[in-house]
């Protein structure tokens, strides 16, 4: 078959396909998914999610089990959103600080944070990379002019060391002092501080009983990190990459899980694996199945009998249980999982292809080819396979969802490849942390929904192609 023939047949197919609305929708979603995979870095809020999914320290600035940001739209009390500010405003000025009450020349890194919510953020984290010996004072200027001293850092002998200052853990006592100085003795004695976070204090109006009843203080907050010039002027001492993370109560498009991981990043990163596993497995296994059927039909006799017997063995295997046991024992990588999926799923198209090939090999053009001296393999590859392959395209599309489900099921049992991110693994983590019984719906709904949408996409494509390629199923 020449290129022109192929192009003609494809055009004919496309003319039919264009009329299938569901097929077009499927094609649209598939193309969109491919775009997302190609431009993955654009969509990822956390760029290094690949390879860091199980790295706890990569996610430590996030909030644990935070709902998605858009839940704010449906709640009366708005929760603070996670914000990351990479660029600090750097100024050198003469200013006072807790450690230098008389004032000294300081370099001040300041961040402005606009607080317009009802529920305070969970934590404020200051990160920097430093060399040599550094001391640093951190405070917050509130919209009402009050300055909250949260803590200081003194570290020596650093070499490109990452520093992390969390107000929630390291600033607790200083913030409590701030309240103690300003609120009434009675108010403090009457209230208990359990469950009160430092950020709760910082982001609420001053009152005598701040621990109990708090009204949010909205406005612009300035978080400052101050380093004395005297230390910075010493050679070898250096502060770099100062950045601020405000860990909100709601986070990201799809929230976070109990290990503080951003679920949206996980799901986007899992998309390419779902597509890859689904497509590569179904394409290869259907190709194998088609060739198997043709060869079995064309050679006939003993070859046919023995090939049918082997086929029967594979059909009699319950795939998922065998895959579970194999993965539990051999702890395979994703490549081995794909290979074993192929081993068990090539059986699908064999029977139909074999019976079609049995009819076809008696056609006159095959006889003509034989008369012209064409060999067996030439007839199989040049005359039978090109005609039979298109019929299996629908099979290919329809095999993708089950493949994705197989991989997801293995991952759900905790048998997936731990070096990659798949939707099944996210659901495994959700299941083992009891997300269903704790109502963490944003952890369960999206991964499964994406698996279902993937399945739907390929079902749309497959059923549309099925209708075109097997006209008998057309509705009258």
């Amino acid at each position, binding site marked *: 078959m020449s290129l022109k023939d192929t192009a003609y047949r494809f055009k004919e197919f496309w003319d039919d396909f264009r009329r299938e609305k*569901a097929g077009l929708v499927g094609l649209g979603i598939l193309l969109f998914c491919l775009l997302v995979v190609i431009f993955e870095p654009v969509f990822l809020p956390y760029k290094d999610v690949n390879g860091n999914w199980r790295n706890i320290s990569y996610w430590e600035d996030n909030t644990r089990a935070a709902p998605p940001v858009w839940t704010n739209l449906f709640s009366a009390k708005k929760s603070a959103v996670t914000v990351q500010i990479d660029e600090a405003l750097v100024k050198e000025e003469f200013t006072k600080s807790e450690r230098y009450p008389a004032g000294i020349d300081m370099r001040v890194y300041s961040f402005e944070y606009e607080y317009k919510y009802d529920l305070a953020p969970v934590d404020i984290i200051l990160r920097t990379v430093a060399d040599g010996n550094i001391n640093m004072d951190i405070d917050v200027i509130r919209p009402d002019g009050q300055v909250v001293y949260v803590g200081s850092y003194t570290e020596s002998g650093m070499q490109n060391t990452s520093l992390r200052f969390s107000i929630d853990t390291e600033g607790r006592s200083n913030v409590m002092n701030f309240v103690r100085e300003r609120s009434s003795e009675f108010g403090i004695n009457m209230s208990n501080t359990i469950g009160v976070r430092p950020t709760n204090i910082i982001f609420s109006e001053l009152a005598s009983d701040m621990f109990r009843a708090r009204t949010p203080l909205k406005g612009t907050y300035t978080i400052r990190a101050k380093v004395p010039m005297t230390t910075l002027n010493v050679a070898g001492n250096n502060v770099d990459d100062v950045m601020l993370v405000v860990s909100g109560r709601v986070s990201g498009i799809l929230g976070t899980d109990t290990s503080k991981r951003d679920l949206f990043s996980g799901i986007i990163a899992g998309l390419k694996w779902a597509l890859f596993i689904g497509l590569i497995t179904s394409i290869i296994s259907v190709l194998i199945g088609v060739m198997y059927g043709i060869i079995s039909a064309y050679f006939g006799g003993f070859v046919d009998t023995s090939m049918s017997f082997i086929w*029967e*063995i594979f*059909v*009699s*295997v*319950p*795939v*998922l*249980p*065998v895959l*579970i*046991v*194999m993965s*539990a*024992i051999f702890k395979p990588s994703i490549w081995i999982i794909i290979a074993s999926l192929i081993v068990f799923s090539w059986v699908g198209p064999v029977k139909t292809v074999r019976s079609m090939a049995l009819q076809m090999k008696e056609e006159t053009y095959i006889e003509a080819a034989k008369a012209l001296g064409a060999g067996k393999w030439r007839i199989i590859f040049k005359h039978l396979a090109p005609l039979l392959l298109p019929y299996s395209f629908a099979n290919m599309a*329809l095999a*993708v*969802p*089950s493949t*994705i*489900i197989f991989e*997801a*099921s293995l991952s*759900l*049992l*905790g*048998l997936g490849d731990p070096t990659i991110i798949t939707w099944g693994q996210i*659901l495994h983590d*959700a*299941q083992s942390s009891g997300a*269903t*019984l*704790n*109502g963490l*719906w944003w952890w*369960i*709904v999206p*991964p*499964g929904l994406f*698996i*279902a*949408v*993937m*399945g*739907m996409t*390929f*079902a*749309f494509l497959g*059923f549309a192609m099925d209708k075109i390629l097997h006209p*008998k*199923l057309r*509705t*009258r």
Partner: protein
Amino acid sequence: MYKWYALKRILRGVFMFALLMFLFSLLFNQVNERTQRTQIFEQVKLESQKLTNMRSDQMEAWRSHRLDQLIKQYKLDRPMLERVMFRAVNTVTFNFGKSTVIKSSRGEQEVLTILMEALPRTMLLFTTALVFQLGIGITLGLKKAQKPGGSLDKSTSFVTMIIFGMPTWWLGMMLILFFVYFLKLFPSGGLNSVPSPQGIMFLVDRLWHMALPVLTLVLLGFWGLSFVIRNIVLGILQEDYIMSARARGIPENKVLFGHTMRTAAPPLVTIALLSFLASFSGGIIFEGIFSWPGLGNLFWVAVQQNDIPVLMGDLALTTGLYQAGLVILDLTYGFLDPRIKVGGKA
């Protein structure tokens, strides 16, 4: 003759099961032997602790003697092919040995007892679901086939495609989230409440626990079934004899149930059983979501506890059931298809 056909098919099923067991014991030979050796060592250690009136060198001699004896008994000293064969024969005769961690409800460690305890529970769940699925699926499929391209046909086919790739266990998680966490209507899992009530309330309690898992299976199961039934029935409705039946003025319902369904019966039964087998093999881990202590949940537990004998036994039993299903499938097909019954070719 149907008798011979049936016998032949059953024998082939048994042969296939034995062959698969041989392949499995070949594939998992190494890990099986490692587990068996550890179990033997444990057993000898346990036995030697009971012997108190022995000197240490006597003890050592006794221990190595006993080890030799057990290793001979389990044929671990034989060549590899013989060991594999020995284990395959053991599996085929349901001699699964003892589990390493998992115990049955009465504390026994026989793998067979553990499996036989789980089997009826799985059967209860899947057959109940199958009854509902068949009822809804056949009714819907016939309705769809009567008016192909109609609004009912189109809308249900659309739903079929939407749920085509939805994992059963995910729907289970969603239903738990909705019915257990938000509405607090059903229990989150398990077979019965603890402590389980007596008498008629026991049954009610069991049904209450079964509701969500069965609902999950049924909600996903009947769509595909009705779609396939529609295609089969639609193909038959286009045959000439149906048109002639209609032309003779036979009522539509009689055409549908008398003429069409009789011809459609063999493929229908095939599809029904096949979809049952598929949901059995594919949905098996969904039991774990509902902590329904059947065969599927046993896979889940055995994987987590790394209990190899139970894992192997469960695999063998599942494969056996799957084989039995395939055999029953062919037998009913042959029974319903007169061409096979009288000895012709299908």
